[in-house]
């Protein structure tokens, strides 16, 4: 791992961490439930991006499958919570 790529990975991971903290503030202080669902969806995206950057950082293919799984879980959980807020039940 060269120094240019290593520094860029560190910068990207640091900015993801800072962005996650900002989103976490919105998740805790969100005035209504839909704000919290939106913030949680964005946190899932940050986790997925962290997995992809770690895959580049360590030069490994394994992280890609983790990122794909996180993206799938993000869609399932967010849509389930949105359906719950819309109807009061998830499966009708």
């Amino acid at each position, binding site marked *: *791992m*060269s120094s*240019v*790529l290593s*520094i*860029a*990975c560190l*910068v*990207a991971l*640091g*900015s*993801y961490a*800072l*962005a*996650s903290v*900002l*989103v976490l*503030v*919105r998740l805790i202080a969100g005035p*209504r*439930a*839909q*704000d919290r*669902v*939106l*913030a949680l*969806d*964005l946190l899932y*995206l*940050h986790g*997925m*991006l962290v997995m*992809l*950057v770690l*895959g*580049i950082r360590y*030069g490994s*293919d394994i992280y*890609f499958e983790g*990122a*794909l799984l996180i*993206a*799938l879980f*993000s*869609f399932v959980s*967010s*849509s389930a919570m*949105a*359906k719950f*807020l*819309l*109807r*009061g*039940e998830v499966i*009708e």
Partner: protein
Amino acid sequence: MSAELPIGAQVAVAVLLVLSGVFVLISAAGLLCLKQFFVRMHPPALAYTFGSWCVALASIIYFSVRESSFVLHASLITILLSITVPVTTLLLARVALFRRRVAGIEGTPPPLTAPSAVPRGRESGPSRS
């Protein structure tokens, strides 16, 4: 790390990674700072599109140059996101509209299916079939 990449590929991957970090940071700051929910739904689109595209492109460039062949599997993530994110966003927008309507906030547009229906006040619950 076994093989060093050529300097052009390194710089391209580094620039894409830093750019994605900047986009994600801007979207998170927008989510934190904007005032209304419907305005607040827009900044995450920046992270969903440009943030993830930059990282996927960086991953494609890195693995393709390292293994000297096209390794395109990171584009699966952009395809998956472009399918699933509009569904989630649309559901959340409908949730916000429905909950505003149930709470009886002024200025909420009435539902299109029942033109005469005024925003229903405090009913028993959001159960509607």
